[in-house]
């Protein structure tokens, strides 16, 4: 880590300093939940069938096994949404009477060791009168099909409709109607660390500490206290080092409720670490949507009207706090994306099935809607005989601010610029020549584009628009300097790999003149940090970062007042940098530490004009902004095997001001890798009985270093006027654009065969099946 540039004013923000998180994680000194010891281990007995009535549970003699019948007074998980016909379904933390998906927890076995708990769990017998499973959303919607929850007719749990005035007329005025139907299959975020929790009762205070792998410690505390009916102040939630989340760890985990209940009951400590099979079958899933999109174009390939239908399989229950409506509502609000289209109509449904519940997964619907919209653009481009880049240029929004058809304010964006950057980097004319030559040699190259906007850093107004009972958004930070000049920033956000300890320290360092390594960022402990919403939705750098900047400005102002008094100079003449407050242009300076010392120990010098101590709080709740990017890729498809090899992958990204470009590029590359996995490999497969066939990582198939090419990243840094830092979030973008770019490239490669592949993952089997189908049609 190099020394700050003296006198540069903004010495730390914008530099790729090395992460403060790394030394511990590289030395085996990380502290993950499973690293802590408990007196008891817990194993959950789970439903082996997708649907049915529990007839009898037989527990081996002498074993400690908890079922729903023990949990009297514990309320079911039932998040609320006050719009869009949402049906408030209930999930008992342990199945009560009925089971609704394979993997649903039925009983909790408590034993001194994990092995003993597993042995006992094998002996617990659960007799279930099985009913036929409904795994697919379209089947669940069919007339006459059994309802999975009472009150949810046709298994519709939420149904949102939106239509702009005069939509039909706009459609009718168009010259060409183009329809795409997209299937985005079910996936699992698959963080390398699964879910894990340890609840420990403290006999002295009567409090319970729940250490768990969560993205939202405060919400976890609130939810569990509410469900159990205990004082929230009696529960402390700690998120130690958390091994990735990607959304899977931002919803309440029913098993954690059981752990806290057990710790209180046993007055002891209990721990559960899920195994990989549990994670794949019973942690939250993502995606699984059918999308139908009809674009109405004029003769110049300008999109006049967009008609969308979204059918989202939400699984058997609704996740807390967002509810399972998060996917269909996101799709409805943001489907038009970066394109200028004034006429828009959408119906978006969430449909209950006998499958693992859905929760947000990196991108939340935007990977699917971007896939549909970008396939529509490519299909339309082919019909109008245009380059895919050209049809996008004709339709991308280029005047800002822009109010979208659904009322979203796009403050500014660089859609065309990032498209042009990506296309230039690929050298489109040269590629088209190479593509033709390759086809003559029997090789099939394809180019795929995806332009998209990524809504980021949104506060309470955006969540309130969804009608959520729990409305997240703001973040508060506390920034204090102790008498020795060390700084502590306590945040409600809860990073788990994003490097916030480093980036927030960079933001604060520039304001208060101390190096980032002297600033300790404290997170993931409800006893030590202000209430906050955790880390999700590409929000933390923007919102917690914004609050950090506001708090740091207050501390800076106080340091200036103290320095002004001690140096006997006007605050306007004092600069704070490089660990000191200095009268500009002179040698007269005081170390920041001495200002801190004076603030605490020499308060009498200030005659009551300056409050003792240095501790400031700030809250930030922005309306939100949009990052944007263009992903461009070249792939080669082997028609004999259906294998897709990615030759190049380019990301031209505009995320506003970059606080730490190294970390930014890491987020983008990691997101793209997940998007590539989603596009080509990863799939949770249910059989007709509702059982999961993909219960190991070897079956689910996340990509390895062999499948992920170098990601070439280009940046624009258009500062956002809507955020105090000028930064925009970007945690999800990689995963949003990549599936569309890849699938467009695969289709471009296979264009000579006359096939259309509109389903992800585009596995070799699916590509071969499409090619066989085309070949049979020709014969």
């Amino acid at each position: 880590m190099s020394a700050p540039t003296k006198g540069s004013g903004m010495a730390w923000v914008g530099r790729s300093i090395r992460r403060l998180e790394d030394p511990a994680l590289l030395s085996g000194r990380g502290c993950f939940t499973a690293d802590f010891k408990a007196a008891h281990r817990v194993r959950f007995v789970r439903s082996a069938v997708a649907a049915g009535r529990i007839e009898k549970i037989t527990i081996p003699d002498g074993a400690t096994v908890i079922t729903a019948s023990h949990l009297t007074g514990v309320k079911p998980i039932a998040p609320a949404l006050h719009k869009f016909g949402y049906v408030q379904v209930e999930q008992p933390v342990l199945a009560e009477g009925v089971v609704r998906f394979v993997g649903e927890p039925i009983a909790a076995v408590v034993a001194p060791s994990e092995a003993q708990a597993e042995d006992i769990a094998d002996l617990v017998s659960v007799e279930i009168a099985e009913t036929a499973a409904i795994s697919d959303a379209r089947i669940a919607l069919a007339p006459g099909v059994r309802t999975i929850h009472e009150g949810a007719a046709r298994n519709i749990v939420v149904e949102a409709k939106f239509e702009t005035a005069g939509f039909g007329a706009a459609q009718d005025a168009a010259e060409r109607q183009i329809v795409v139907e997209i299937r985005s299959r079910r996936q699992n975020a698959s963080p390398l660390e699964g879910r894990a929790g340890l609840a420990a009762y403290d006999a002295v205070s009567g409090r319970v500490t729940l250490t768990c792998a969560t993205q939202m410690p405060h919400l976890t505390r609130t939810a569990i206290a509410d469900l159990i009916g205990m004082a929230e102040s009696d529960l402390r939630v700690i998120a130690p080092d958390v091994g990735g989340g990607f959304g899977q760890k931002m919803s309440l985990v029913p098993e954690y409720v059981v752990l806290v209940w057990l710790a209180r009951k046993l007055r002891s400590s209990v721990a559960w670490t899920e195994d990989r099979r549990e994670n794949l079958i019973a942690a939250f899933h993502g995606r699984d949507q059918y999308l139908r999109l009809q674009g109405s174009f004029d003769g110049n390939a300008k999109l006049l009207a967009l008609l969308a239908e979204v059918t989202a399989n939400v699984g058997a229950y609704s996740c807390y706090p967002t509810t399972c409506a998060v996917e269909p509502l996101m799709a409805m609000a943001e489907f038009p994306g970066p394109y200028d289209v004034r006429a828009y109509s959408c119906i978006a449904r969430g449909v209950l099935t006998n499958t693992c519940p859905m929760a947000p997964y990196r991108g939340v619907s935007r990977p699917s809607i971007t896939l549909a919209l970008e396939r529509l653009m490519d299909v339309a481009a082919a019909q109008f005989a245009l380059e895919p880049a050209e049809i996008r240029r004709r339709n991308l929004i280029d005047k800002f601010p822009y109010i979208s058809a659904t009322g979203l304010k796009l403050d500014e964006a660089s859609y065309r610029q990032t498209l042009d950057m990506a296309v230039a980097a690929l050298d489109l004319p040269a590629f088209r020549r190479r593509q033709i030559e390759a086809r003559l040699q029997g090789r099939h190259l394809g180019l795929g584009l995806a332009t998209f906007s990524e809504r980021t850093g949104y506060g309470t107004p955006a969540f309130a628009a969804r009608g959520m009972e729990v409305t997240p958004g703001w973040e508060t930070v506390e920034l204090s300097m102790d008498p020795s000049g060390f700084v502590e920033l306590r945040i409600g956000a809860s990073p788990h790999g994003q490097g916030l300890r480093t980036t927030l320290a960079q933001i604060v360092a520039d304001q208060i003149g101390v190096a980032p390594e002297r600033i300790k960022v404290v997170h993931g402990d409800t006893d030590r940090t202000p209430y906050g919403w955790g880390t999700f939705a590409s929000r933390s750098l923007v919102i917690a970062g914004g609050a950090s900047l506001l708090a740091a400005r207050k501390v800076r102002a106080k340091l200036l007042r103290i320095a002004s008094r001690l140096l006997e100079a006007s605050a306007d003449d004092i600069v704070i940098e490089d660990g000191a407050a200095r009268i500009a242009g002179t040698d007269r300076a005081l170390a920041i530490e001495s200002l801190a010392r004076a603030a605490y120990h020499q308060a009498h010098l200030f005659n009551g004009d300056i409050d003792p101590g240095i501790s400031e709080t700030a809250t930030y709740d922005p309306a939100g902004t949009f990052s944007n990017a263009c992903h461009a890729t070249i792939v080669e498809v082997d028609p004999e095997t259906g294998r897709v090899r990615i030759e190049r992958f380019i990301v031209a990204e505009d995320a506003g001001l970059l606080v730490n470009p190294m970390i930014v590029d890491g987020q983008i590359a990691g997101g793209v890798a997940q998007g590539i996995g989603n596009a080509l490999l990863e799939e949770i497969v249910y059989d007709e009985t509702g059982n999961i066939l993909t219960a190991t990582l070897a079956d689910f198939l996340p990509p390895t270093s062999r499948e992920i090419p170098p990601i070439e990243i280009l940046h624009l840094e258009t500062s956002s006027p809507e955020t105090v830092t000028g930064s925009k979030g970007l945690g999800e973008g990689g995963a949003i654009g990549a599936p569309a770019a890849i699938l467009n490239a695969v289709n471009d490669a296979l264009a000579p065969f006359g096939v259309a592949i509109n389903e992800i993952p585009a596995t070799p089997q699916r590509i071969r099946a499409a090619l066989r189908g085309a070949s049979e049609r020709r014969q």
Partner: protein
Amino acid sequence: MSDRSDVTLMINGRTYAISVEPRRTLVDAIREDCGQTGTHIGCEHGVCGACTVLLDGAPIRSCLMFAVQAEGKAIRTVESLANGEELNTLQRAFMEHHGLQCGFCTPGFLMLVTGVLERQPNIGDEELVDVLSSNLCRCTGYQNIVKAVRAAAAEMRRR
């Protein structure tokens, strides 16, 4: 299954005399019985490689081996790499090239690479990508890991 066996594990040059059930996996013994929690458990199916340690110099999945099978063999884990607070060349390269985000898979990658570079200091770039495909990372997209390992290998060769 309650019969226990006495086993002596040699981890990072230190001897641990423990008593475990025969079915105790090596990774559980390393973590639970010997208290070395730097080695992580990601899948227990031998797929993800988070539990990779060196056994007599060779990278192995410690979730696929029983503790009793490791009797008398030299085990090395991530805790052996740094010299006090001073990171070694490979660890520094991971930091320098941002080869980790959440850090959960990192100990497995570090031990995999340590074992490979000790045996094949001149490993080619393509073969290296193949070897690294043994382990899963869900955060980084792998390229920064590849860069870190190439840089570390080059620096080790220079010395």
